[in-house]
């Protein structure tokens, strides 16, 4: 329990009035910048790096912790309210969060997201404290075959979001996979579907795809069918979570970290895949299947919690491994102060590391304290008249796409994807599988080819770890389960 003693010392550093002030400023700045379109947490931390130059390292990192959580929550806010996710981990939040917001439950969706971030971050950070050394060892043993096995599992899970018509869901997934193919092949640098354009060489960003399909697609769709009768303003509704909401969400909040934390610990985990897996899990387990697609609060709570838990800085602090874009920027920040994260950091700078970990906790508490009361205010944003609301969504979607790279081409791509989104709505193709295809496709391909290359081309390289084999067994069970259930003996037993 040595770690917890160190953590207490860390709180001694993080709870001084000055540190608390830095953390609070960080949370506010982070939220304010995170809600801006096109600026995800990584960009927010990078942009705010100069703000911290005047501070000592401890103060600076405490402020970072605040900025980080603030920006993550800010990204989810626009995702829920305006259907325009600011970063890839917030994409899933739009799926159930935006319908909630449109039916007047925006405040509840925001509260579910905020509490989700809080519980996910808390549990994730606690696990980090307790398990850091063991997790570090495990993470290193994790290789390409294991990643690929998880991707296969994720693809199986996609089938549950294909919607009522399988063939239309598959069409959507394949559209996503094609978009994911655009760009330079990661392994050999070959151009694929770029048609010689350098702007396409890095592929099409998931955020552009999501904003195009969700926000632009919907704005166009609504424009084509706008109710000509005087639309009522979206009601704001009760500001707080009702007892019923809490009953539906508490399990989702707790399950999120179970999915998110392992991904945060492994080197190439990232936060998108756990949010999506959490979404699918909650959908499977939900008792309110009819609500899905129309604003199921579990679908916001679970993924947000998973995202936060995956975003802990565990493997960066213990191994110097940045698992997310934010962690990479933080790594750069460490180096600015002449600190090298890695195995020696805990020994060399214990005060700073434990101060940072403690301030992750403090940052989350402040986030909840500052943003929960603000949720109803944010939700009022939707009361502005429809014409301005959709004009604003188009405007901010364009800002987000343009500000990041300053390329007009991105706006054209955004519009084209928006038109695709329009067509998908018209003909009942679900949008989510396409977004998942963009996320999973390139990842799965890269890990598959990396695994094969490491084994020098031998297919046995895909099943040479116990973990991968275990995952394939699970996959086989899921696929075969419907068949097995038909076997009379089993059916009797189940009955």
């Amino acid at each position, binding site marked *: 329990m040595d770690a917890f003693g160190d953590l207490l010392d860390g709180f001694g550093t993080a709870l001084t009035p000055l540190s608390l002030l830095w953390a609070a400023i960080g949370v506010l700045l982070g939220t304010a910048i995170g809600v801006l379109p096109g600026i995800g947490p990584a960009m927010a931390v990078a942009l705010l790096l100069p703000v911290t130059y005047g501070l000592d390292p401890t103060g600076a990192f405490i402020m970072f912790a605040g900025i980080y959580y603030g920006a993550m929550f800010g990204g989810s806010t626009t995702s829920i309210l305006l259907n325009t996710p600011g970063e890839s981990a917030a994409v899933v939040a739009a799926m159930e969060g935006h319908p909630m917001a449109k039916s007047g439950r925006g405040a509840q969706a925001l509260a579910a997201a905020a509490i989700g971030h809080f519980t996910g971050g808390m549990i994730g950070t606690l696990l980090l404290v307790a398990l850091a050394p063991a997790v570090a060892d495990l993470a290193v043993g994790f290789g390409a075959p294991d990643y690929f096995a998880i991707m296969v599992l994720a693809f199986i899970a996609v089938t549950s979001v294909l919607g009522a*018509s399988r063939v239309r869901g598959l069409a959507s997934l394949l559209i996503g996979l094609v978009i994911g193919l655009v760009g330079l092949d990661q392994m050999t640098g070959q151009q694929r579907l770029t048609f010689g354009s350098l702007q396409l060489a890095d592929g099409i960003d998931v955020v552009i795809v999501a904003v195009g399909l969700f926000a632009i697609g919907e704005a166009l*769709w609504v424009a084509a069918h706008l*109710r000509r009768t005087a639309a009522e303003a979206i009601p704001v509704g009760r500001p707080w979570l009702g007892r019923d909401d809490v009953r539906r969400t508490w399990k989702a909040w707790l399950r999120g970290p179970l999915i998110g934390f392992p991904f945060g610990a492994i080197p190439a985990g990232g936060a998108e895949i756990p949010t999506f897996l959490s979404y699918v899990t909650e959908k499977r387990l939900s008792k309110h299947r009819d609500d899905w697609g129309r604003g199921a609060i579990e679908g916001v709570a679970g993924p947000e919690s998973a995202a936060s838990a995956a975003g802990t800085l565990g493997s960066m602090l213990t191994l110097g491994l940045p698992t997310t874009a934010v962690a990479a920027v933080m790594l750069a920040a460490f180096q600015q102060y002449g600190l090298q994260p890695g195995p020696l950091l805990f020994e060399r700078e214990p005060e700073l590391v434990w101060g940072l970990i403690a301030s992750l906790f403090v940052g989350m508490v402040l986030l909840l304290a500052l943003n929960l009361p603000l949720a109803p205010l944010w939700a009022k944003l939707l009361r502005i008249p429809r014409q301005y609301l959709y004009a604003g969504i188009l405007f901010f979607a364009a800002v987000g796409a343009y500000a990041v790279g300053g390329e007009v081409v991105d706006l054209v791509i955004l519009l084209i994807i928006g038109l695709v989104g329009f067509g998908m709505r018209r*003909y009942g193709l679900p949008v989510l599988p396409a977004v998942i295809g963009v996320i999973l496709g390139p990842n799965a391909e890269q890990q598959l080819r990396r695994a094969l290359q490491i084994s020098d*081309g031998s297919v046995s390289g895909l099943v040479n770890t116990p973990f991968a084999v275990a995952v394939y067994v699970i996959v086989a069970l899921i696929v075969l389960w419907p068949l097995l259930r038909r076997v009379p003996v089993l059916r009797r037993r189940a009955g």
Partner: protein
Amino acid sequence: MSGTGTPAAAGRRSWLREHSELGVCVLLLAVGALTLFDALTMHVEITQRGPVGPRTMPIAVGAGLLAVAALLAVDVLRGGRGEAEGGEDVDLSEPADWRTVLLLAGVFLAAAALIEPLGFPAAGALLFWGAAYALGSRRFDRDPLIAAVLSLVTYVVFNDLLGVPLPGGPLMGVL
């Protein structure tokens, strides 16, 4: 689409309108063919290890698209329909208002084209006002001002406060 023309032509037209989803099949087919073509014309000179190279995935996805296009066509011809998405602000009982959609897409493209010559604030304001106009707002004495202020504030936040540069317009460096 008034009732000119022979009954047979009208019948064909209404059949096509009923089965307009076949257009989706054609698009999927085209994208699939394009993906396959791109993969098959790729020059792969690097020594490939194992069965999976840079072409494998595009070929699989392209073939998948062709298959799905065929399956969807069968489904549509058998009477399957993709259900158009409903929603709070959506009224599906009226026919689609193509004028608004085209106007919005046009405004968006115009803004994209004007962003470099006129600067972000002007193009952004045009986008907002144009979109609001397309969606039915007719407050000419108010909308341009709202759009200009929104766009200018966004410009200042990004350009001056955050250091994300956006083009300022033709008067930069003149005033």
